[in-house]
């Protein structure tokens, strides 16, 4: 699958939508007090003041979320005019959604991929059990059919194995994320605007494969938890 890599506009100097004064912050004119309408180029990363990256400083993310809420929440504009109230609601809505989607790494990953035009459903293959886990898994299946006590002990063993496997996969995932972010850091923002980067596309494909593996492991963990409830 090919993907167009959309470079996100870096904040360029703009003027107030209402009075024309140069803006100090992206959303509010300190001269006339007008809130600035949302631009079409805004995304979850940009609205919280981040470049699109898979790994974010979540402490800073929360700090930005609080700062922006403090400035833009509709409660700050209760007695303002209808237009400011509307824009405040619109901006705060986007900020809330952005924060929710960027706060956890899984949601952030899936948003990142979507933003860059990779859709995880598009090349979903029939998932197979990872070879490393296969033996124990099939032993467990056999035990389930035969003896519950045997199955319970197999299940405990499988749980440990799955846990260790997931920890290794997570390391791999984080390593690819770091690679993607590093590649993005190296891109010249001016040059990359509207162009695609094959290097990143390749990395993103790799990332996508790992993400799909994660999804499979999630459902496997769920199945296991269900079995645990029945057996233990």
């Amino acid at each position, binding site marked *: 699958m090919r993907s167009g890599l959309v470079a996100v506009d870096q904040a360029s100097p703009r003027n107030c939508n209402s009075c024309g004064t140069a803006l100090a912050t992206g959303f*509010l004119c300190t001269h006339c007090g007008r*809130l600035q309408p949302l631009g079409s180029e805004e995304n979850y990363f940009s609205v919280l003041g981040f470049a699109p990256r898979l790994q974010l400083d979540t402490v800073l993310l929360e700090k930005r979320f609080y700062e922006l*809420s403090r*400035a833009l*929440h509709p409660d*700050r504009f*209760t*007695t*303002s005019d209808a237009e400011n109230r509307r824009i405040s609601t619109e901006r705060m*809505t986007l900020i809330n959604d952005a924060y929710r989607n960027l706060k956890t790494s899984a949601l952030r990953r899936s948003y990142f991929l979507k933003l860059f035009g990779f859709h995880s459903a598009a090349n979903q293959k029939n998932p197979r059990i990872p070879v490393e886990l296969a033996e124990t898994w099939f032993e467990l299946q056999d035990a389930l059919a035969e003896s519950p006590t045997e199955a319970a002990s197999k299940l405990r063993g499988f749980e440990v194995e799955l846990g260790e496997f997931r920890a290794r996969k997570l390391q791999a995932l984080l390593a690819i994320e770091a690679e993607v972010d590093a590649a993005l850091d190296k891109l010249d923002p001016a040059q990359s605007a509207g162009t695609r980067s094959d290097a990143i596309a390749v990395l993103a494909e790799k990332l996508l494969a790992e993400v799909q593996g994660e999804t499979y492991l999630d459902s496997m963990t769920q199945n296991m938890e269900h079995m645990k409830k029945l057996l233990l």
Partner: protein
Amino acid sequence: MSLPIFGSQPTDNTPIVGIDLGTTNSLVAYVPAAASESGARNPMILKSREGKNLIPSVVSFMDGKPVVGYAAKEHKVRDAVHTIFSVKRLLGRGFDDLKGSLGTLPYKILPGQGIIRIQVGDRVYTAVEISAAILRELKLSAEQALGMPVTRAVITVPAYFNDSQRQATRTAGRLAGLDVLRIINEPTAASLAYGLDRKRQGLIAVYDLGGGTFDISVLKLNDGIFEVLSTNGNSLLGGDDFDQALANQTIHDIRTQWGINAAENATLHAAILEAAENTKIALSSQDHFTLEVKVDSERVFRHEWTVEAFEALVQPILEKTREPCLKALADAGLKPSDLSDVVLVGGPSRLAAVQKIARDIFGRDPNNSVHPDEVVAAGAAIQADILAGRNRDFLLLDVVPLSLGIETYGGLMSTLIPRNTRIPTVARETFTTFADRQTGVDIHVLQGEREKVADNRSLSRFKLKGIQPMPAGMPRIEVSFLIDADGILQVAAKDLKTGSEQSIEVRPSYGLTDAEVERMLLASMDHAEADAVWRRLVGVKNDAEAVLVAAEKRLPDAFRLLPEPDARKIEQHINELRTALKTEHIESIQRASSHLNQASIRLAELLFKDVIAQSVDGNQ
């Protein structure tokens, strides 16, 4: 980062007050325009016209004129049929909701459809009007205390109040001559007052057991930001239930002793309820108390209650607060040990039994340093101060208490906005049609936590017309839910192919009732397992039906292209699947469906070749 903000200067200088409209007592508070010497913007409770902090939420009609407060409370026994109390439990609810949830009341509620009506003498009132009488008294008290007109207010409601109850509260405010700038949740308001001391930071739980409702909220306090992480509750649970439990025991004892049915005598009934309330209050500060009721001119009923006996009586009621607390913690992704404080709010939190259960649930000593009766009104005043633009240090970030979604094929609720989503928010999802050439879809807006539509509350229905006729599954219909900072929901549906659009503001005239929210939540805890199985069954059935329809359509081709025994086999599997689909047995449906699929593989290959051959022919 500090930013200069313009455009939100208060447009006038009339004060905005904070009101706690409680089940048992109400209060009004205000943050004075000038900050204290330390710069702190501290709220003060405004004295009532009777010179007290509390105004009992009791309305008594004397010669048809309403009297509110302690004066009315005195009439609770003397003139029980003309004296209305605990009206908050009736607000925004219907007659049918009362069954079993309310205990008996000495005043008369008229049976009927729609909103609850209360008969007082020869007049009939709604709960909104009674609430308005209380709010009017609060307004007059504030005006007297402040020496100026008061027309704007923030009013608190239980976090678990549904849309109908919130709207009813707003309406009552309007009837009382108040512009209700915001409805905020009681536990959240309490947290604002608690966090006024900026040293109080971190993760807290507010355990708010009021007269008629129980709320639990988990918040993160960070340098003036009050972020609600999750909220839960039981809107049919409160201190009133302790009174009811004591009263029911008393009624039972009186019947056993003298054969008198006290519930049929309004005055005696009111006297028993009052004695029960006094006993409860006394037992919060002493270890035994004698409940006394004058039954008639000759007989007085007496029963000595010890704290132990009282606690044993109310334990089953208190135990019901555990599940919501655990749910709220789970929704916030926290363990009890992550909390830095558990704050007790509400009059009943004075009882040792309440402190005990909170300690047991959270594994720590609860903080009962806040004033349990005044903290909610104080918090409402702080929010009023924020909305007036005078407190720029504090900000409340709130969430939706119940999930919102729409009905989809198979009678399932598809959630668009899960509970505890921060507001304002928007959610969009794309749906499609189920039947061929369908030109309209019904958008059925739902609120609740269950999987089946019938188990949730219907908020509103509307129709999106003008969909281009297409085969099933082709149209793309985008449904969007918008919730503003006031918690008001707007729903829009748009056909992405034709651009045809419909939208409504969901303002239920008769919304989700307390009893329903409660039933739904309790039920969703009990039935999570059953729901999951049912949802899976619907999914499997839908898939199998698609396989069946396709196979039936291709059956004539099977007889044309395959050896007869193979075609017969397909026919046989079609019949088996049809039979299986009449059952609710997931495994047999899946098995039959997979057999049919297997049997049809060869046919599919042949058909595919057939198509290729035809298209090659066509190209020649």
